């Protein structure tokens, strides 16, 4: 506690942890998650013939694993998990804006792609792996 006597506003503090076991445990968790992410990424590379939904699924898993890594870094390394609830909330709640931010803009990008594919015939012929066939609605996405 002695290191907090300088600050009147800090009225309650945990004694600093004695060992470094928790730090090293977190390191191993981060390392293992990274290795899993890499092996998933290489799986997509080695098996390019997988159906596109399988690729999408693997990418989703990698995103979730990255969020887990972010949680461990912020909670353990940055010690946010050891702060009081008010402190955690003042940081985490504003970050909820990212839910809208990511969703809205990716939706917008997809809508733009859909429109271009429909109206810009040059793009359709020259940049699509599988050009839209007449009557095919699966390529139109949810934005257009």
């Amino acid at each position, binding site marked *: 506690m002695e290191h907090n006597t300088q600050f009147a506003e800090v009225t309650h503090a945990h004694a600093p942890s004695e060992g470094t076991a928790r730090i090293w445990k977190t390191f191993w968790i981060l390392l293992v998650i990274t290795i899993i992410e890499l092996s998933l990424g290489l799986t997509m590379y080695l098996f390019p013939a997988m159906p596109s939904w399988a690729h999408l699924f693997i990418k989703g898993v990698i995103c979730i694993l*990255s969020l887990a890594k972010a949680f461990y870094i912020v909670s353990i390394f940055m010690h946010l998990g050891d702060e009081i609830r008010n402190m955690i909330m003042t940081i985490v709640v504003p970050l909820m804006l990212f839910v809208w931010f990511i969703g809205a803009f990716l939706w917008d990008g997809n809508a733009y792609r859909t429109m271009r594919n429909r109206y810009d015939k040059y793009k359709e012929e020259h940049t699509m792996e599988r050009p839209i066939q007449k009557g095919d609605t699966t390529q139109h996405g949810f934005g257009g």
Partner: protein
Amino acid sequence: MATTATVTKTNWWNGGKSPFNVEYGKLMMWYFLMSDSFTFGAFLISYGTIRFSTNYWPSPNDVFNSFPGFEGVNLPLAFVSLMTFILIMSSVTMVLAVHSGHHGNKKGVVKWLSWTIVGGLAFLACQAMEWTHLLTGEHPVLIGNQLDVISQTTRMNPWGQHVDLAAATSALQHTPHDVLVKLVGLHHEVPQQQLAAMTDEQLRGMINVAELHVRETGPVAFGGFFYGITGFHGFHVFSGVCINIAMLVMTTNNVFERRGHYLMIEKAGLYWHFVDLVWVFVFLCFYLI
């Protein structure tokens, strides 16, 4: 201590104390990092928007597949894995420095802070090598009806879709002399002057079109986003190294010992971990998916 004697719950909003129970500097560092995360978030999301708006995007396994010292060997994601490992490791040494600071252990702080600085510099060196490799790489591409040799810049991307053999062979007939010299140079160890003196027919005879793996040009936005975002992250790493060096000098000059606490190291640590945190998402967006 009062808290051990009574069981009454602390009401943080009653006044007289910080409702967040941290000192001013640390709270402001957290708010700065939160705003910085929105800056990085905006960059990465705009990258995602552009990527979602195109039908084709290069696979990271094709773009990032080389390792210094292993020229010509296909090692997808190997070098960037090393960079990730270096950054995670330096995050661990930083948290160990903060831990030593909590215990007032000056020697421990100096030791772990030094390793963190070494890790940061190693990461920056790796990034410099990666950028150099991309900017100076030579890749055969089909532009119009002729072949060209280009590198990854903010204006050009050489990782479009593969061109079939017939189209590449016919494009070879329209390819000018200087490009033919470059194309032969990709697979033959012949002095430049000697190649330049040869006729177009001789040069074409030396080119195995299948071996070239000719591609179309890829999305132009790739380079701008890649160099912009990894550059902005690298700038954060660089400033983090500078901050850590300042902390190291202050520690060795006993500034924190006189002050009675090492809380400044904690704030520098928050910044350094944030740099690692951002890399998790840069790694995700550019290299993994």
